[in-house]
């Protein structure tokens, strides 16, 4: 899922200060799971903005809406309808959702309420961890289902750097990580050992082909079998 965190209230308030009729739009998928952009967070932010603007001497007309996914155009129809009499829309979706909504509302300003952080998992209640960079060339089959590109701080592909201490990545020394970041290569070793597949580590991983990564402009996936008949 996409993990996001709310921007500081002052930053959001500054974006919206010149608009009177606002629509706050939530997304009930990824950002609801990470408690930053679902129905509840929309309601929290609406009440918070109402009070913050009131303290600044402004009364805002704030409406709320939430849809299942803001990154799929069909799900946005309700938001587009609700935005017709609004001066601006504040989207609590990830960056993809904000842009999809902006595309549907060419004459209405659409602002992001969140900072989109990473692709990750819910590791525990209140804890989300990055575990995929979306590099476009997945290596998980080689590494026991643990991504060295994401979870090794140096994205090493052929074993650990040697800086780990007590099973922990050396970035813990410089950053006060809570919880501490384990050495991904130790995790890979332990996992492969459990699976009885340590021999995988003997295969040399060649330099990674990064052409499928994010350095070559916006990526796209095209599936003719999924396209609408035109």
């Amino acid at each position, binding site marked *: 899922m996409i993990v996001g965190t709310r921007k*500081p*209230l*002052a930053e959001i308030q500054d974006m919206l200060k010149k608009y009177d009729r606002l629509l706050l739009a939530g997304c009930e998928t990824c950002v609801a799971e990470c408690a930053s952009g679902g129905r*509840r*967070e929309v*309601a*929290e932010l*609406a*009440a*918070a903005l*109402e*009070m*913050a603007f*009131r*303290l600044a001497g402004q009364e805002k007309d704030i409406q709320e809406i939430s849809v299942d996914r803001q990154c799929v155009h069909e799900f946005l129809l309700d938001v587009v309808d609700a935005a017709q009499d609004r001066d601006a829309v504040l989207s609590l979706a990830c960056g993809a959702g904000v842009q999809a909504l902006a595309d549907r509302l060419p004459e209405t300003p659409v602002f992001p309420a969140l900072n989109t952080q990473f692709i990750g998992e819910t590791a525990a209640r209140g804890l989300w961890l990055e575990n995929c960079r979306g590099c476009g060339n997945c290596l998980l089959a080689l590494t026991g289902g643990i991504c060295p590109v994401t979870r090794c701080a140096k994205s090493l592909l052929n074993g650990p750097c040697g800086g780990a201490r007590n099973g922990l990545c050396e970035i813990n020394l410089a950053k006060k990580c809570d919880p501490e970041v384990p050495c991904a290569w130790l995790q890979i070793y332990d996992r492969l050992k459990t699976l009885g597949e340590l021999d995988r580590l003997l295969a040399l991983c060649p330099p990674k082909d990064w052409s499928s990564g994010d350095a070559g402009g916006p990526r796209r996936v095209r599936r003719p079998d999924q396209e609408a008949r035109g």
Partner: protein
Amino acid sequence: MSPTVTVVLLACRQAVPDPESFTGPLKGAGLNIRVVLEPCSSKVEVFQMLRTLAHEADLLWMVGCPEKACQMVEGSRRMTQRVAHAREYLQEIGLEPERLGMVLLPAGNQEIVDATVNEIVERARILGLNPARAGTKVA
């Protein structure tokens, strides 16, 4: 102290079996008071706390059971976490976080009820009307 200060108590009905224990003395102190009994204090979400402060309350007080007495096991702990989160929001808004209070109350414990009432009255005296509440006109 302004007689128009409005206090809302969102209370676990196990912790507050008799709402009059709060409404009587708080009315007697010149405050408007509304007690809303909940099945558990954890039923109250952060957005409900913020909305209550945005639309009705000058002071909002959450009342739950002590953690070990919570019939929902995690209810009081969740409520405590939500109050902390809501207070952080109030800080960002620029409103005094002290407008949101909380107490963990062993069911009907009169000593703690009295102490809480005194704390609410004192807080109302210090903070007065909530300038972020709809309809508030602060001189």
